[in-house]
């Protein structure tokens, strides 16, 4: 993973995958800029897991992600795959719904393949249901997880912190400070 040069003075971009509970999959929640994987995990914790529930985070360099949509997969040209060479392990993620969500693809499993295109082909066979709209495959060696033995320090404090909606802040001296547009 060495040699990923900073591109815009902020360091490379890392995709962040958050797991909300141990029986739920890791889900893509966005990205962070950071110097290296350890830094990326700390930034991911601050940016993506300060408040919401989480039990684990993964980060992967954005340029290690191979993404393909269902349309691209079934375009006129046949889907060619890498052949020969030694097999690597890939983590497979997919999006299965058009429903609006805060997350993108969900982790569904792993495949072994000689390259990312072959990994996608293997993923289509291995995980046929429900039909995927988008596939992401990421070499397992590029994915770094938050330390399990520190999970409590990373994620427990968020449980006592709640979002405060605007309405949580009391109205000062009714009549003196009127809200715009009457009630809200």
């Amino acid at each position, binding site marked *: 993973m060495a040699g990923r040069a900073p591109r815009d003075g902020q360091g490379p971009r890392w995709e962040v995958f958050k797991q909300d509970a141990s029986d739920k999959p890791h889900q893509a929640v966005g990205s962070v800029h950071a110097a290296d994987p350890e830094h990326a995990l700390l930034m991911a914790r601050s940016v993506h897991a300060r408040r919401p529930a989480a039990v684990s985070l993964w980060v992967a360099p954005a340029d290690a992600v191979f993404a393909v949509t269902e349309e691209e997969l079934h375009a006129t040209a046949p889907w060619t795959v890498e052949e020969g060479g030694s097999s690597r392990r890939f983590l497979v993620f997919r999006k299965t719904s058009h429903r609006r969500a805060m997350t993108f693809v969900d982790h569904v499993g792993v495949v072994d393949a000689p390259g990312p295109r072959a990994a996608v082909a293997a993923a289509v066979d291995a995980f046929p249901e429900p039909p995927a709209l988008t596939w992401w495959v990421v070499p397992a060696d590029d994915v770094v997880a938050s330390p399990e033995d520190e999970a409590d*320090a990373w994620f427990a404090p968020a449980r006592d912190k709640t979002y405060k909606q605007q309405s949580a802040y009391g109205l000062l001296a009714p009549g003196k400070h009127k809200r715009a547009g009457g009630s809200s």
Partner: protein
Amino acid sequence: MSGPHDLDPALRGALIARLTAMADDELILGHRDSEWTGHAPLLEEDIALANIAQDEIGHALLWLEVRTGLDGSDPDALAFFREAGDFRNVRLVELPRGDWAFTMLRQFLFDAFETELLERLARSSYAPLAEAAAKAAKEEIFHLRHSGLWLERLAHGTEESRRRLEAALEQLWPYLPQLWQAQAGDAALAEAGVVPEPTGLEEAARGRVLAALARVGVASPAEVAPNPGGRERHGEALVALLIDMQSVARADPGVDAW
């Protein structure tokens, strides 16, 4: 011993002084960290440091709430309506924020000390204090990871980052021992198991700092005599900080909600 009513008056006074010192350290450091909001070198670090600032201010509130249990004092009144001369923070935390290396190194030195302090306070014979410390300790592990990561990267980053780190260390070093310097009532509190035994805490905190510096290959400056004066002595920087920190609360002291 477990609750407020089990403390004799001398210990109660000593514990109030100790809690105030700990709260003021956290509050002033938290405010200094918050000064980076909108100015940090990376957007992600801006958010991360704002989180840490909130955590430190949250720890200050934990200590002040334990104090409320002893004397009924109001944490907001203590934070926003005391003058600089009544604050009991160490000088280390009030120094102007400096550059990123200075901010991260100061945070590391404080985190290294606080990690050792909280670990021991979580075993305090005074139950409300032990409970508050256990809560803060969780966040502190993460703080130390963050500032420790920067210590390493500043040391091994570029010539400039190394130079800035070493300059910050020279500047901060004389202020470090005040963190573990005992106050008048601390010996009696330690005797009663309320706060950690001062020499053990000092040894552990100093050891943690020296080990971290050795690990990143930065020479620790020569030992210096602790900065003279106790926690009632402050620099002008604190006065300016308080004007900023207290201005909103003082603009409308009778306000019901905000």
